[in-house]
């Protein structure tokens, strides 16, 4: 930790052609916004109770299947605002997590993290739309990419979002241990450390696991919905956490282990549906205690699987708004 530069931050300049870059990056994988509205309409038609991520862990009332729409805003806050407003039109819940290490949020200049002032507008837009707002935390990414104090960054950005009137009560962890070099970002919270261990980065610094207390930060939930195993197979868990996955969410074998057979964590939901491209989903979980996993399935197939879930099941939909950004 001592080798890290302090987290210095201000609010200032914006990236001039950022959104053009996003358009280019997602040109082949993004869906139309109508695709998003279709999915939401179908979920409502299927009788899914849509709740905020903060409530997904709780027992569903009346035996209904319930779901949460989690929006991890990795790249496109404008599409996120559009999603938020669509849900407002329907009067249903959606949860949105701003990634504090994303270029749209800010970047580092001369050792100072400079926030994009437009973030204020996006936050306010989502507040008015009535969405749940949280921070997509990436403390280890900030350490890795900029050598800055990611723990302080998480604290500072939660505080800053609250000064913008956002009622931040939860976070969602960005990326995975496969990217972070052996630890999930949510392991920065003491409650969510998966295994007691030391994780060293290539430069020999130790990742700060368990250094934050959620309660002291006023946080109620971690929307990744992962929980440590009560009796983990330590060797298997360590091996998985240290595993690298070049394909990430598009690596079917890795996603199956991550969502269904994860030796490092269990899940507070029975099923997860990840939108990973153009009409392309990964569905995984253990409804009824049995493995369910299908990758690269269409939205239609995903909905079919969701309709087949048992009563009282909880499903987490993970949508990156950049995948529904097309007009």
């Amino acid at each position, binding site marked *: 930790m001592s080798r890290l530069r302090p987290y210095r931050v201000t609010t200032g300049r914006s990236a001039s052609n950022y959104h053009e870059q996003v358009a280019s990056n997602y040109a082949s994988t993004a869906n139309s916004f109508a695709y998003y509205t279709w999915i939401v309409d179908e979920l409502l038609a299927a009788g899914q109770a*849509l*709740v*905020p991520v903060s409530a997904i862990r709780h027992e569903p009332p009346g035996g209904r299947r319930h779901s949460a729409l989690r929006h991890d805003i990795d790249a496109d806050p404008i599409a996120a605002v*559009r999603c938020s*407003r*669509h*849900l*407002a*039109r329907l*009067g*249903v*819940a959606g949860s949105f997590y701003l990634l504090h290490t994303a270029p749209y949020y800010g970047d580092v200049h001369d050792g100072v993290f400079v926030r994009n002032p437009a973030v204020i*507008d996006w936050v*306010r*837009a989502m*507040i*008015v*739309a*009535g*969405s*749940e707002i949280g921070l997509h935390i990436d403390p280890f990414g900030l350490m890795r990419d900029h050598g800055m104090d990611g723990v302080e960054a998480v604290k500072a950005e939660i505080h800053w979002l609250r000064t913008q*009137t*956002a*009622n931040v009560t939860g976070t969602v962890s960005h990326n995975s241990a496969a990217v972070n070099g052996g630890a999930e970002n949510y392991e920065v919270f003491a409650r969510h450390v998966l295994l007691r261990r030391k994780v060293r980065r290539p430069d020999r610094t130790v990742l700060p696991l368990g250094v934050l207390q959620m309660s002291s930060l006023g946080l109620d939930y971690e929307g990744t919905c992962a929980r440590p195993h009560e009796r983990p197979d330590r060797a298997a868990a360590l091996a998985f956490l240290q595993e690298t996955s070049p394909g990430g969410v598009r690596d079917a074998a890795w996603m199956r282990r991550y969502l269904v057979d994860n030796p490092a964590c269990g899940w507070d939901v029975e099923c997860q549906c990840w939108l990973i491209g153009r009409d392309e989903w990964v569905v995984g979980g253990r409804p009824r205690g049995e493995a369910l996993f299908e990758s690269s399935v269409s939205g239609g197939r995903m909905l079919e699987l969701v309709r087949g879930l048992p009563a009282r099941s909880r499903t987490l939909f993970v949508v990156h708004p950049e995948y529904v950004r097309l007009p």
Partner: protein
Amino acid sequence: MSVFFILSCARSGSTSLARILDGASNGSCATEPMPNLNVETRLAMDGRLDDPARVVRELVVPRVEAGVRAHGTYGEKNVTYGPFIGALHAETGCRFVWLTRDGRDVVTSLVNWHESLFGNVYRECRETGELSPDALSAAMRLPVWMDTSDRARPRPRPGDPLHPHWSSLSRAEMCAYYWAFINELYLDALSALPDGSWMRLDYTTATAADVQRVASFCGLEGLDSSAIQAQLDGKINSLADRSASAGRYPSWRDWDGGRRRSFEAIASGTMERLGYWDEASTRWRPPRYGAWWAAHEGGVTWYEWMYDTRRLMHEECMAWVRGRIAAGDAITSIADLGCGVGVGYAEAFADLRYVGVDLTRNVEWCRANRTAPSHAYLDVDFIGAPLAERCDVVMSSGTMDNVYDVDALLRAMVSSSRRWVYLTAYRGWFPDLDEHRYTWSPEHSCFYTDVSPRRLESTLRESGCTEIVIEPRRTSRSDIPYETRVIARVPS
């Protein structure tokens, strides 16, 4: 049972009326009792509620019966009863009081309600709005899945022409839709009831006597007229009452041309159906428009001063007419809209047919003092009532800046002209404006409008005009270096 319901859309005064009626000696009137049918009304409006009568029987009738037992006469105010009017009447034998308010005032009130207090009026709107800290905080405290109030507002259903465009509308447009939809719903449902089962009150201009008539209709007694007037004057539940703020969204009198057109596109049918508008050309005429000018005792001296201030512009106009005649244009008659007392023009066009149009006082003076046999003076609202006599040139010098509808003026001039229209705007040249920028002056009971050249051209083209020239003209004055001049040939 002696039961009544107050119906209105939001921001129409129903909370004020309910509180006043609740002071009756023989009954009570509840303000938004729960359950308030927020969820059910949206389901019904979306066509997803199978049995509205069951909702009424299960959720409303029990408390109505309890209210009658407790108070004798019982009433309720809720803004969600539109889809349930027939069922309410059938189940309770009630009467209805339908409160209306000019839709433009409702739009302004709703937008200010959003921006100043609650931040949750049509939360999906593309405009976040200029929210006060209180409003932003209120929006944060009430997430959308708990916000039945915003959910209760109607949205266009598939098949509605507005449905595909909804996400691109401004909040004011959404509020206009709300006002129109809800009042149409009320009127349709009430029209199906027996005569005498409902009455309408326009709360825009309600007096204590009006409220007493409502009380009598509802079977309520014991209300004091002076107390009612005090409550009306107190503007119960207004923005000022709730937040000591007037709100930043302007009154419709200060809407620009774009806001006017947006409102018209959505709500003009309902404005006409409810009697707020009659003629299309006079929609934007405020009640006291022109009162100051009609009463002002400026006399000829005042008009001569105004003429001298803009002498160059007047001389250009006269030269243009003479130039057209010299070029062979068969111009024999001129109508001058807003002629004042004819200073300059009566003499300049002594040899032509000259029809001056202005307020009664000026017209009377002209008839007595301008005696050229080929001249006539008319005291008509030339926007609302285009001239019966068509002239070769219809001109207006420095009047379009003060009228209530610049585009309506242009259309009236075109329809009254055989060959040309010629106008000048004394307030300047505003090439950057996309819309006419209206500012209402309560003191002078007229508008001070900066006219948009682009909008002028658009209106003239839509009217079929050709050879349109809209240009700045030098004034030789330092305060207003350029005025706007408009010349166009009208369709034959």
